[in-house]
């Protein structure tokens, strides 16, 4: 299928600054395809990002865009959305930005179930600062700050955001682009806090240090490690090892924050 996405990018800002083979470009392009598919009004879309490689996405996308501070994209987005609920507010974050320093805002955004679409590009590393481990760097992997192998556990971000109260949770990969478009589309159209983990690849700062020298190798790893959620539950624990489910992992109809607040305004103003 053909998507009309040139209009969603600031063409004069391309090529982007991401390294050769970086998955962020693929993910960003397919977010644009999902916006095209969902037929959203581009004048009413706001993209908010934090700091790090993922943070650069906002600069390329031709909407109202905010490149904010490290880890705080969700509270900025919360203010934008609550102040004007007719806006479609998309947060683009990374595994360092969103799951390390921004972890509190992620779970509280989910708890409020405010209508944001949060896309966390997970490349398993701090790329912009050249390769420190993140909360998503696999245990045992190498990183500049884990010269003897990483001893930290990872988050399961789908579990974490579900436990926080988010009402739409999905995971996709830069490898499976068609699935990614569907997931993004569903997340954009879902009313409530939508969290989408998009597995990306960082050949330069993660792959090189961990026996995956090229983007192609890393994409193959994504392919081999991902299992569609429809098939996931049928796997044995043994079969699940080293793998992760993709697709829409959780979805629930739940009252949305800005709507509830509007009800307060309506009722208070009616009384007055």
């Amino acid at each position, binding site marked *: 299928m*053909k998507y009309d996405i040139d209009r969603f990018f600031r063409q004069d800002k391309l090529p982007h600054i991401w390294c050769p083979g970086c998955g962020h470009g693929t993910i960003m392009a397919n977010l644009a395809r999902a916006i095209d598919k969902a037929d959203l009004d581009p004048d009413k879309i706001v993209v908010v990002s934090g700091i790090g490689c993922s943070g650069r996405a906002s600069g390329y996308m031709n909407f109202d865009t905010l490149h904010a501070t490290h880890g705080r994209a969700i509270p900025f987005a919360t203010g934008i959305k609550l102040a004007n609920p007719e806006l479609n507010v998309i947060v683009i974050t990374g595994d360092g930005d969103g799951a390390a320093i921004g972890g509190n805002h992620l779970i509280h955004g989910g708890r409020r179930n405010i209508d944001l679409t949060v896309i966390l590009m997970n490349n398993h590393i701090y790329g912009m600062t050249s390769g420190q481990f993140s909360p998503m760097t696999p245990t045992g992997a190498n990183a500049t700050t884990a010269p003897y192998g990483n001893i930290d556990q990872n988050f399961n971000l789908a579990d974490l955001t579900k436990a926080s109260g988010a009402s739409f949770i999905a995971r996709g990969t830069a490898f499976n682009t068609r699935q990614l478009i569907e997931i993004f589309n569903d997340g954009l159209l879902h009313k409530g806090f939508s969290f989408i983990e998009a597995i990306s690849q960082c050949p330069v700062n993660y792959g090189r240090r961990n026996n995956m020298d090229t983007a192609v190798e890393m994409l193959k790893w994504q392919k081999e490690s991902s299992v569609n959620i429809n098939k996931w539950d049928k796997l044995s624990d043994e079969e699940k090892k080293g793998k992760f489910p993709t697709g829409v992992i959780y979805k629930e109809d739940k009252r949305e924050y800005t709507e509830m607040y509007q009800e307060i305004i309506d009722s208070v103003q009616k009384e007055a």
Partner: protein
Amino acid sequence: MPNKGKVKITHPNRCKGCNICVMYCPTDVLKVVDGQITVTDIDGCVGCFNCELSCPDFVLEVVEEDDK
């Protein structure tokens, strides 16, 4: 709607030679030459969109013949 279009390198200057499209192409019509993606066999292109969907750098598109 495969077969309605063919791959075209619309923005060669954006290519970083990452080989991702090459991996996805089911008919091996793409090749990185001197760090630059090239179409080596346009007739082989089945217009599957894999390359367009996977390219991280907005380099190529599948366009209908009369779009050229």
